[in-house]
């Protein structure tokens, strides 16, 4: 493979309006196959709006989004994308196993294949012991991990995670990042939104969002070097037009 990897996601001049209010102003960026791409920005900067369009739930008002070479939104693409929303979208009265089985079967998993994937996904997020407990008895961090397991269940080619590590302790956060790294090595493209600056350093490449505009794109090192900053945080302030 060449140094410049193939584009997995291509976003060109995307705008999104809610009524008269434009919240994304002409975003253009490229996510390469198999990389971990971080969308960094404060809350309200448009991260969630952008990833919802990447995940095919929302439609851009203007501009184009291609995922794996196919124009979004497209229903068939949704089975190739894994999505973990910012809020834990789980059925609290059901057990973890029932939640997994439900979402798994929506993606067409069944029988032995579903069982294997459920076990693997739950091992990954370290919840195997709690498989049969109702989700209402889960802590916040456990719900977050179960949401992640559900997003991974059908082995998507593209994994979109909206603030995946909120409410997760540092030990588990590290193990989740290790897993994202290993998924990426196996060829899965991972898009992560975060507002935690030190987490951004673990991404292969970053897009910095502020006020609905992409203010910078590149590897953490490139961004730091180009702005002469010692940390991602300083770099963000630099690109945001604030001098440290």
């Amino acid at each position: 493979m060449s140094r410049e990897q193939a584009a997995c996601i291509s976003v060109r001049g995307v705008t999104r309006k809610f009524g008269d209010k434009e919240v994304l102003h002409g975003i253009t960026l490229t996510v390469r196959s198999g990389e971990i791409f971080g969308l960094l920005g404060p809350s309200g900067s448009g991260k969630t709006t952008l990833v919802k369009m990447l995940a095919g739930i929302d439609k851009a008002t203007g501009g184009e989004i291609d995922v794996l070479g196919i124009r979004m939104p497209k229903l068939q693409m949704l089975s190739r994308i894994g999505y973990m929303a910012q809020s834990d979208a789980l059925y609290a009265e059901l057990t973890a196993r029932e939640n997994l089985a439900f979402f798994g079967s929506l993606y067409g998993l069944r029988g032995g294949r579903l069982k294997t994937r459920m076990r693997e996904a739950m091992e990954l997020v370290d919840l195997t012991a709690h498989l049969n407990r109702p989700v209402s008895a889960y802590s916040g961090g456990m719900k977050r991990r179960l949401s992640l397991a559900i997003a991974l269940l059908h082995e998507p080619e593209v994994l979109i995670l909206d603030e995946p590590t909120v409410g997760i302790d540092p030990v588990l956060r590290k193990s989740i990042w290790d897993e994202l790294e290993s998924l990426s090595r196996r060829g899965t493209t991972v898009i992560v939104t975060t507002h935690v600056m030190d987490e951004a350093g673990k991404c292969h490449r970053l897009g910095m969002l502020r006020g609905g505009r992409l203010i910078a794109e590149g590897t953490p090192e490139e961004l730091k070097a180009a702005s002469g900053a010692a940390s991602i945080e300083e770099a963000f302030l630099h690109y945001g037009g604030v001098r440290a």
Partner: protein
Amino acid sequence: MRVRALIVRIIRQFIHDKRTLALLIIVPLVVLSLIYLVFDGDTYQPKIGAVQVPDPITQHLVEHHAEVTVYGSAEDAEQALAGREIDAIVRMDAGAPRVKLEGSDPSKNRAAMAVIQAAMQDLAVLQSRAVAVTLPAFEYLHGGPDMSAFDSLSPVLIGLFAFFFVFLIAGVSFLRERISGTLERLLATPLRRWEIVAGYTAGFGLFTSLQAVLIAGYAVGALGSLMVGSFGYVLLIMLLLSLTALSLGTFLSAFADTEFQMIQFIPLVIVPQVFFSGLFDLENISPWLRWLSHVTPLKYGADALRDVMIRGEGWSAIAREVFILLGLALVFMAANVLALRKHRKI
């Protein structure tokens, strides 16, 4: 099959949430029993106070099942009337009987008047010594002399309960799906919008069918509600009625942002339907309000249930109502699929 996955999930949710299941199935039976106890009592026996009334009149009043109390003075009787111990006073005024009614309860007024009139009529017949007084013979096209208020109300009530509880539970469940973010999560899967509506309809449909069978079976079997026609038709109408409630509830939940706002639809959507459902006689309603009765699903269901249960009518009498209910359910379901466009365009 993705619709099947939704159905299985809804069944599992009901199994874990037994309280909601109880609301859907046990509560209608309890309320129906209470109404039965209230309405199936014997006809009211009016309490009548007599002041210096000749004995024959008193006897005839008693014969017509009035509770007669004889008062020595008009004042005593007036006091009893004011204290609501009696419903009416009968006294003689210059040879003619005068009646004073307590007056605040129309049904008691009617009962007292009917008894007094019947007693006076008997007396008149005797006094005139007419040789051949032909009393009319009564026949009934439907129902019969023993039909109680409950018999007449129960077709409307079982329809109303099937409608109300399904509307509420389906509406709130679908709303929670939206509030909790699981709807958005569902829309991030390859599930089609119509599959969501179909899955909900089928999953809830299972429980509403169970409810329909239980409510109708209980009203007819246990409470002895009048049932002339075919029980199969009753079930068909009940099912269509709850299907309409299910689709209307889920559709309207798109216009509510909280459970509280969903509850606000009850006075807006359910209560007017109760008025038009046939619980009250609407012969004299203003014409400009009457058109409303044509857009209330509950009225069609209740009319058809009455036709079957009380009048013993068959398919030809209920076909129109059945198709209208089916049509309304389909319209609401289609509206549901469209309303989901708000959340995902494809």
